């Protein structure tokens, strides 16, 4: 899949978003450089902001924190011991003191030791204390998703576990421009945010990313392509497969598809989704995570609640199979453009 990325770059992954002001001075940046730039911006403007996690000091295993320690100092950019529950707990405490806290979990696959601190503590702090305390200045970043050779433990998409927890926000960018704008919003949002970065995108080509400080709002999906016959919903790297599938299906069936990038998984922008599905009458949702209990299930449930009489077909889903993420079978597992094409076709011709 990585080779497919190099062969043809989806214009969708590298498109700007309407909220980003045009004509600003910009630099070509990969997603990881855009993330690095966002972190640098925060560390520059907020003198007590901290970025920490495993191997963060030397630049991080994906280089997202490259150069930050030298520039901003060792008390603010530092390594933690190898302990996700410690990273998360420490981060909740620091954030509850009001410090802008950006914790890194090295791979989303390893976030589970931190699950208790995230769902029982971070998510619930404001609520359970009657608003006396909060850790709104907390952001936890983690690389997620398929990378071509990651297997069970370097490929997971855990957003559904966390989406089921009231009190968290979950944000997933599709490209460099969104990564910077959404990360800045996430850091500044007064609620704890999980920011999952599609690791396959880190180095995949680059595009113009404004040098200035800019934000893309949370809780708002983006219609990246307008169309009339079917609504396609995805996020992160899925926009690549969807873009290819849609190009093919539009040509072969003579229809137009509307593609929505969720950008924020939680809270969902149902207003944009409902408006679109009421217009098209058909919907396909795509995500890498396993089908059962994935966020596609929640979106499908909500769509049929609100748009039932507008639906011309069942709501389709293109997801990972209900197996752990396999290594040699990744090509069969991964919901790619062919699987998306087949599902879109099935729903359009229903």
């Amino acid at each position, binding site marked *: 899949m990585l080779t497919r990325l190099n062969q043809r770059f989806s214009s969708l992954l590298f498109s700007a978003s309407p909220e980003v002001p045009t004509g600003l001075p910009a630099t070509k940046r990969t997603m990881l450089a855009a993330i690095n730039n966002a972190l640098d911006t925060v560390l520059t403007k907020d003198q007590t902001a901290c970025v920490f996690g495993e191997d963060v000091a030397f630049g991080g295993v994906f280089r997202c924190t490259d150069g930050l320690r030298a520039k901003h100092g060792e008390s603010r950019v530092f390594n933690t011991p190898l302990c996700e529950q410690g990273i998360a707990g420490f981060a909740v*405490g620091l954030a*509850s003191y009001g410090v802008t806290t950006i914790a890194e979990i090295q791979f989303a696959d390893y976030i589970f030791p931190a699950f208790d*601190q995230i769902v029982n503590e971070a998510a619930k702090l404001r*609520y359970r204390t009657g608003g006396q305390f909060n850790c709104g200045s907390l952001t936890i970043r983690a690389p997620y998703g398929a990378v071509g050779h990651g297997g069970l433990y370097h490929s997971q998409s855990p957003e559904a576990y966390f989406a089921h927890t009231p009190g968290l926000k979950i944000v997933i960018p599709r490209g460099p421009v969104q990564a910077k704008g959404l990360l800045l919003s996430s850091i500044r949002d007064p609620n704890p945010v999980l920011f999952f970065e599609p690791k396959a995108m880190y180095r995949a080509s680059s595009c113009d990313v404004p040098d200035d400080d800019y934000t893309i709002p949370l*809780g708002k999906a983006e219609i990246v392509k307008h169309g009339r016959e079917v609504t396609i919903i995805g996020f992160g790297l899925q926009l690549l497969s969807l873009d290819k599938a849609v190009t093919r299906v539009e040509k072969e069936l003579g229809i137009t598809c509307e593609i929505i990038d969720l950008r924020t998984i939680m809270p969902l922008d149902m207003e944009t989704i409902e408006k679109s599905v009421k217009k098209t009458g058909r919907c396909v949702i795509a995500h890498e995570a396993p089908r059962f209990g994935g966020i596609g299930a929640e979106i499908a449930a909500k769509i049929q609640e609100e748009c039932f009489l507008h639906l011309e077909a069942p709501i389709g889903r293109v997801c990972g199979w209900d197996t752990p993420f396999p290594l040699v079978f990744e090509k069969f597992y991964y919901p790619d453009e062919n699987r998306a094409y087949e599902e879109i076709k099935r729903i359009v011709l229903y």
Partner: protein
Amino acid sequence: MLKALLRSMSYSSSLSFTHPHALSIPTFQVINEDGLPNSSSSQYLSSVNKDLLIRMYKTMIEVQEFDTLYYDLQRQGLISFYMQNSGEEGLQVATAAALDLNDWIFPQYRELGVFFWRGFDIQQASHQLFSNAKDLGQGKQMPVHYGSKDLNIMTVRSPLATQIPQAAGLGYGLRLKNQSSIAVCYFGDGAASEGDTHAAMNIASTTKSQTLFVCRNNKYAISTNMKDQYGSDGIAVRGVAYGIHSIRVDGNDVIATYIATQEAKKLILAGPQPVLMECMTYRRGHHSTSDDASRYRNKEELEHYQKNNNPIIRLEKFLKHMGWLDFDPVEIQKETRDRIIKAKDVAKNEKLPKWEVMFDGVYNELTPELKKQKGELKKFLEIYGDKYEINKHS
């Protein structure tokens, strides 16, 4: 970096295993179980005075009487749940007395004396127990889950030990902002087994957080005695393993505990560096009102800690020894109980929080979905409100 790596290795030609109890950490004590100063304790007595110790005594009585009343009220069905502090009142007030309001507290759930000492009064505590509209926590959590932003006391939570790495993080924040205050977390010998305890001490050690870890080793975690909880020489030795200055103290000796806490804070700020203090004590009460400790421990043990090693009695004896007992303990007990009963009546008669508050605080503001759900519940309550005693809510 190579020099540091090489320096840290020292070789030995004789094969030997270090015994797990090689570092047998003694228990610091100033007054013995009869309330009399130990022979070499005189150097420490100047750290305390009559007013301080009397205030400690009176606060311990407040805790004791509050516990007694509310345990009974739970049994009568007036509140749903309660946890007593019996046996640990001493370490609670003694540690609190050595700190100030700029220090942050991360309690577990058996630290009422810390709350009272810092000014979280009996009335406020009563509101929380009744989950009424005046509860600072908005009735969201079970009884005894107190918290106070004004007093820098992080609200009690039910999951064990999660507060410990948070205290390490906040202690780091204090260091970052050059504050001469510390983050203090309390946890029991049971909670000390949780992964979060290990995680916290390790990260506090490497980041040099201004954090004081206070372990209340009260010998039981519900029914589990120390022998099933750990194989180490208690919890104090673990601090050393993480590179943390550690002390074991007699938690039922308020003077020793007070002094040790003062010195611990000085040591923390001098580093900066975290410190671990293990307070040896005993949980005389049940784990909670859902527990019956007679099922797993014997009367003999209980009586020993009731009579022979009781922090309140030991302090009373010391005050008498010093000629400082210028009040009648029975009078104090009665007067305290009256105050508590009055506060209970006020709390009991308050309305419960508005039902709408259930949706507040999930995020800083309601999301569209939460607004929608709140609207659904509103419509539902318009029909069924009375079946849910809606008039008890404000």
